């Protein structure tokens, strides 16, 4: 089933639900746990036997990490930096299983990898400067 179809189907189910209702919907033999932050909905699809309340906590955990990383995160941060949102998720979950309960550790690991990218960038630009000078 393609990503877009899942989103469309779930939006139909979730967006129509009122504010005071529970955060769980049953969907195609699974459960979807969703949580709303302003205009953003975070959804996680889980098996029947998973702990729904804990999944709510995991979603909140993720949002707090995002918030700390972007500095009061908003929708646009996530749209334009979708890759970063994924990198953070990959430090938090692997194949849906929780990897790290400490927000601090996740932040530290992401920062370390971001700085690796920065270093590579600087090296690349200095190399290109050298090449530019050499080819003058």
């Amino acid at each position, binding site marked *: 089933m393609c990503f877009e179809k899942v989103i469309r189907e779930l939006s139909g189910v979730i967006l129509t639900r009122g504010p005071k209702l529970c955060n*769980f919907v049953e969907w195609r033999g699974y459960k979807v746990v969703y949580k709303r932050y302003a205009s953003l909905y975070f959804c996680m699809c889980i098996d029947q036997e998973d702990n729904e309340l804990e999944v709510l906590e995991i979603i909140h*955990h993720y949002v707090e990490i995002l918030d700390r990383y972007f500095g009061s995160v908003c929708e646009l941060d996530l749209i334009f930096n*979708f890759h970063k949102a994924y990198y953070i998720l990959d430090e938090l979950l692997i194949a849906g*299983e929780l990897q*790290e309960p400490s927000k601090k550790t996740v932040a530290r690991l992401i920062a370390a990898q971001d700085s690796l990218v920065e270093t590579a960038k600087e090296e690349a630009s200095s190399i290109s400067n050298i090449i530019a000078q050499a080819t003058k």
Partner: protein
Amino acid sequence: MALHSVNLNELFTYCWDMIRAIRACKTAAEERAVVRKECAAIRAAINENDQDYRHRNLAKLMFIHMLGYPTHFGQMECLKLIASAGFPEKRIGYLGLMLLLDERQEVLMLVTNSLKQDLNHSNQYIVGLALCALGNICSAEMARDLAPEVERLLQFRDPNIRKKAALCSIRIIRKVPDLAENFINPTASLLKEKHHGVLITGVQLCTDLCKVSEEALEYFRKKSTDGLVKTLRDLVNSPYAPEYDIAGITDPFLHIRLLKLLRVLGQGDADASDSMNDILAQVATKTESNKNAGNAILYACVETIMSIEDNGGLRVLAINILGRFLSNRDNNIRYVALNMLMKAITVDAQAVQRHRATILECVKDSDASIRKRALELVYLLVNESNVKPLTKELIDYLEVSDQEFKGDLTAKICSIVSKLSPEKIWYIDQMLKVLSEAGNFVKDEVWHALIVVISNASDLHGYTVRALYRALQTSAEQECLVRVAVWCIGEYGDLLVNSVGMLDIEDPVTVTESDAVDIVEIAIRRDTLDLTTKAMAFIALLKLSSRFPSCSERIKDIVSQYRGSLVLELQQRSIEFNSIILKHQNIRSALVERMPVLDEATFIGKRAGAMPTSVSTPSAASINLPNGIAKPSAVPLVDLLDLSSDDAPAPSSSGGDFLQDLLGVDLLPSSNQSGINPVPQNGTDVLLDLLSIGTPPAQSSPSTPDILSSSQDNKTPVSPLEGLLSPPSQPKQAASAGAAPVVDFLDGFAANPPKPEDNGSAYPSIVAFESSALKMEFNFSKPPGNPQTTLIQATFTNLSSNNYSDFVFQAAVPKFLQLHLDPASSNTLPASGNGVVTQNLKVTNSQHGKKSIVMRVRIAYKMNNKDVLEEGQINNFPRGL
């Protein structure tokens, strides 16, 4: 040629530009245009093997992918980025791999080598990227190839790699359970770690190992239970730890995962369960329940208590927690409480029953998720002692419930009522209420079953028809109510008018003959009702025309108004019934006699037979079309019987014509056109054709067309008289009702269609199934001109000295075969071979000549009131069927 610089700023600036452009689009068409342009540029870059913009392009592709456009052409780019040397390229390459590919794609095999290198990389972050990707998308082949690397990384110096390796191992053992034993020892040491990330992933890995490997379960049960209990105790009693604190609890995630692992270890093992009792009691009593995190732990704890071996005190504690949850104002908490009570019901039904009132309230909640859970739970709670009050509550709620919930609710009520009804009158009353409230949501088999029950309750016929008459006055828009009502009015109209069989509880009602006709006429005229209902109403009118001679003229007028109806079915009925009323007065009363009592056991048996999806039975089809709207197969000979005995001897050609005229059999156009049909040899053939028993219309009698056939094109044969039989009854019973010599004659045909001469005995009979109690033989024949089809006559013989009742034979075949089961000749099988049951099967082999027939069979019956089930597979079919 100039060397380009790798400028990562540029990469995302440009990706941002694309996102901005897409966001600025006002219509879907505009968006498609932007995406098309971008995709074209990216394809061009890919074709030129452009390296500098590869990561930018991949980032764009991921965004395009998220919008739902195809991006398969970018898959190789991921692999190239992963194979490059730098961390930034690998990072985005692996992200692309996880987003754009999944394990089904062949391309994935190409990445195994890069993954292997990266798992051995000196940079631990690159090792981390590889582990994460492997954990998310690994296939079984990759699992086998890379398991040794991952196993080694479980002992890596940096804990952040160990935890990733642990989650990656979960994926590996799920894909290849054989590898589980390699992971047992490394996992045992993970469980002793202090680092929360490693510990939490280690616990998860351990849980999964126990699920896939009995050996692992035994090992961890023995070696680790005490250690895990201690870990949990330390965690519960740990002082404030800001890094892991959520709502005053240290690491609730770890709490929950430890509880889950203890559940797996304790299940089915008294010693292990015993050793965790204390800590479970502590968690259940000490955990704060004012925040979600605490409730999540309590929920996990209750589940563990319910799953491990019994400890009375703990169970009480757990049920109390659920009771508290159930009265919580937070919908999430109530939802999980209902969820857990469903599991608790198998452990302690009494305790759950105590919360019945609250659960029933939840059925009426405004939240659809909660309603659904609660309804499931109520369904499990109903038993003989509480069925009446619970059903009343549910039916009362049916009146006010949301439209979209009515379907579920109706199905559950009907199921409860039919399963647990203490007496027939209660069953009928409840079903009538449901039909009046939600008749449009009632499934076909439910109202068919109701008609069968009504038919069997002879002392309640009058009561029922009067109740239906009253219900129809207020709820005439409920489709299924109308159907049942018109059926009953047609059958028992005289009881309605004469107030026969009045019960003490009834209010007297005065209904004149013309009132009864009125209400049926309204059903025909109402536009919102569907064709089946109207057709049933027509039959009811025909029956009333005979029951109420005073209204006969009026009914004739109503019926004949539809002679010009554009709906073929109604037009046909109108013309046929008109003809019966006008021309065949002498047989009308016999024709519309009351239906014989419908056999409940057969109906239930057929329904059971129709349940498994792979089993095909005619009952399923004909039950859905009980009223002759379409052609039910092979059942409805009954109504002809009176005819043939009354007017003309069946096996004569004039009888055939007469029948044809009356039945409006529409075989004629085809025979007229083709003109090459074999002339029937004798009268029985004609009759057979008329009854359309297994003979295609093309072989029909060439007798002269009559006025009726002109209206009938090439539609499948519909004999309106079949319609008199609502849910199809059995030929056997019919015989007893009609009782004339001809009857038995015809009846014999129903059970054994004559075998075609040409290759009737080409295949030897086989003993398809034999047990100590039962023998089943198959006789084969092929209809001429249709090599794919095999007719099988199954003969069952009872080898024991007890009679069998409720005898039901079911069969299932693989997809290339189609199976069609006729009803069995009887549902009782006398002892010691003193009589047999026969049943006809028709198998169509779409792979004729390539594959032989195979079949699984299941035979259920009651012996000395005990259910017996026999099953088997038949592989000894003669070749070439």
